[in-house]
């Protein structure tokens, strides 16, 4: 019960915050670009809308930028913005003077961030669907795509991407809780992500947690090329990192000498 109350309290804090806006903007960014491009080029799309692999092509088109760029960067920003709510308002001291165990505070806030990530996935999929159907509603030349939506396959890949993101989320949370200065978690996150992109051609690039969603995109879209297939499941590795970063984050958070 204490945890539920604590979670509800944390959930209220993100109302009207930059982090909650970032969820919406980040989720609809790529679908909006695709929608605008389709509206602009509607006269050339009749063949695409009649294609059997319509949804798969749309899927690959939307996920490419999302998996490699928007998701990791979005997580870096969103996690920092959530913890900055406390730093910016000098409310850590108030929060830590409430009758809550440290483990409750840590995981209630963490769960809010995890659910925000899930929100991004839901909204992104909705946005992707709308980017497909809105042009056919606007232009008579574009029929509603009749190709069946591979729901189960998309759901599986969605879950994989979601799991791929968890280590980034946990590590960013760890860093954000340790440093008051917004630039530290954001800068560190950007550097790690950039380093990961640079290391993509490396055969062991899967050891880099910020690369998991990109590598998964390559696997799911058949663009893996000559890269070495990881000897184990990427999601298992992601979950292992997630557990390690979460435990480390909690230990460091509890060990902080000053809590406010």
């Amino acid at each position, binding site marked *: 019960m204490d945890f539920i109350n604590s979670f509800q309290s944390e959930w*209220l*804090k993100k109302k009207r915050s930059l982090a909650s806006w970032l969820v919406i903007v980040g989720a609809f960014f790529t679908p909006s670009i695709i929608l605008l491009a389709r509206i602009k080029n509607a006269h050339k799309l009749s063949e695409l809308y009649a294609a059997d692999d319509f949804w798969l092509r749309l899927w690959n088109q939307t996920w490419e930028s999302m998996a490699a760029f928007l998701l990791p960067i979005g997580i870096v920003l969103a996690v920092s913005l959530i913890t900055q709510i406390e730093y910016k*308002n000098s409310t850590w001291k*108030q929060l*830590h*003077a409430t*009758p809550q*165990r440290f483990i409750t505070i840590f995981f209630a806030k963490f769960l809010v961030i995890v659910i925000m990530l899930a929100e991004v996935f839901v909204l992104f999929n909705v946005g992707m669907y709308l980017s497909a159907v809105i042009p056919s509603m606007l232009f008579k030349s574009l029929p509603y795509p009749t190709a069946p939506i591979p729901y189960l396959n998309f759901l599986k890949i969605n879950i994989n991407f979601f799991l791929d993101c968890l280590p980034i989320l946990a590590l960013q949370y760890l860093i954000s809780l340790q440093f008051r200065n917004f630039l530290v978690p954001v800068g560190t996150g950007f550097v790690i992500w950039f380093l990961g992109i640079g290391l993509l051609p490396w055969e062991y690039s899967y050891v880099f947690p910020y690369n998991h969603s990109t590598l998964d995109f390559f696997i799911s879209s058949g663009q893996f090329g000559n890269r070495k297939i990881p000897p184990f499941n990427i999601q298992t590795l992601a979950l292992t990192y997630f557990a390690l970063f979460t435990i480390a984050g909690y230990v460091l958070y509890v060990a902080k*000498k000053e809590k*406010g």
Partner: protein
Amino acid sequence: MYSIETVNLTHKFSEQETALNRVNIQVIENTIYGFLGPNGAGKTTTLKLILGLLKKQQGEILVFGKRFEKHRVETLRRIGSMIESPSIYGHLTAFENLRILQKVYGCPKRRIEEVLELVGLARTGNKKASQFSLGMKQRLSIAIALLHNPTLLILDEPTNGLDPNGILEIRELLQSLNQNHGITLLISSHLLPEIEKLVTHIGIINQGSLLFQGTLAELISKRQQNSFIIFETSNDSKASHTINEFSTISRIEPGRIVIPVLEKTKIAAINQKLVQNDIEVYQISKIENDLEKIFFDVISE
């Protein structure tokens, strides 16, 4: 019974910087304890240690008779606090700020309206807290501290940023909380005049050491001990001998004789005797040290 008791509380931010040195504070239940000291004296560090916001290094902290670190959650359930600057979410309204805490404390939702009314913020509506004046933010912080009906309030400089009228209102509110609801208050301030009308007990801290602790009456009696009668005469040396005949100890300072406070009749008798001994008396005056002066005397001892 003490609501708060610290035993040899010592805290260092570095080897060279001792923030607190064997501080022993005793806040008696149902009293208002004024914790005084100049900026940087160690007040906020002490309060943060009491609330567990700083990791304790040496000494003991007992709150409601129990060791704080062993009973942190149940102890904090009975404490309302406000430390340093107001802790409020600027992007939310006053109501939303309190709703966050109401969820945590599990108190009835109607308490939000009650405390907003109590601190005079009931009509702030949809205004975001970031648009509040410093005084309004301070009031909202006090509302947050009061939300769950605590039995102990720890307030760090609660009247900071308030105008004279606001200071008076908050003082009356705090006094009423103590007198009508039996809430114990620990209030820090660097300004004695701001809290001398409010507190029953005072602790004075400077450079990490507690220099005085006692009732307000004890501090006032210290004021009387520090009051003097001054005589300005034509011959201080001769006058001093005459004054000493009245079983009092005089001290000659440049241009004047200083003696402890005496009854009016005795002062008149001394004056009469001086005149009879052909000593001209130019002035007799009383020097009274006010609490402010004593405060500075204590911290500069």
